[in-house]
């Protein structure tokens, strides 16, 4: 079956540095990918999305890269801030609406 996974469960990054969070997916039919951020005690919050016909999409301080050849997704956060500390999930929709989430990467920002 399909699965969405993140390469590393935790990431520690110095404030001001760039962060890169990776995600691998297995369903080649997936056509829409989303990154969510979840702070402690809160629900997931949408960060950025990308469709399968794109390789890169930029938002405010965030960039998502999609490599369909190796089924890999990454989220880059520029100039990481303390408020970026959270759990980050990648999610995919195969051709359906049921978002499939990975287990998440916990990002800790060091002052």
């Amino acid at each position, binding site marked *: 079956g399909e699965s969405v996974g993140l390469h590393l469960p935790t990431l520690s990054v110095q404030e001001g540095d760039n962060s890169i969070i990776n995600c691998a997916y297995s369903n080649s039919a997936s056509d829409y990918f989303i990154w969510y951020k979840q702070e402690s005690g*809160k629900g997931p*919050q949408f960060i950025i999305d990308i469709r399968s016909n794109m390789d890169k999409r930029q938002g405010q301080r965030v960039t998502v890269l999609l490599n369909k050849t190796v089924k890999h997704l990454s989220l880059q956060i520029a100039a990481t801030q303390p408020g970026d500390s959270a759990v980050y*999930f990648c999610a995919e929709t195969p051709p359906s609406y049921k978002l499939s989430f990975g287990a998440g990467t916990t990002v800790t920002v060091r002052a």
Partner: protein
Amino acid sequence: GAGVSQTPSNKVTEKGKYVELRCDPISGHTALYWYRQSLGQGPEFLIYFQGTGAADDSGLPNDRFFAVRPEGSVSTLKIQRTERGDSAVYLCASSPWGDPNTGELFFGEGSRLTVL
């Protein structure tokens, strides 16, 4: 408020009891989802409503779980004969999108259920 509202935020119950968890979606959102999140895991799909009808309930783990959305707005997730394994955070999300393949969902803060 403007966001998805879930009540109660915390519920502690005893094994075998019945519980109801309520979700108030963002006004005007036609799509409503329930997810379950266990500690250290990503959210797991339970059920999806489009309007009043359950378009897909394939994620409900067994027949002890049931959800309704009678007027196409508020939804209630009902769990009968609770078991310790039901302990988790139950997340509700809504979406205004008519296109089901647009995945941006607006999540509530969840209802944390603890079954003793």
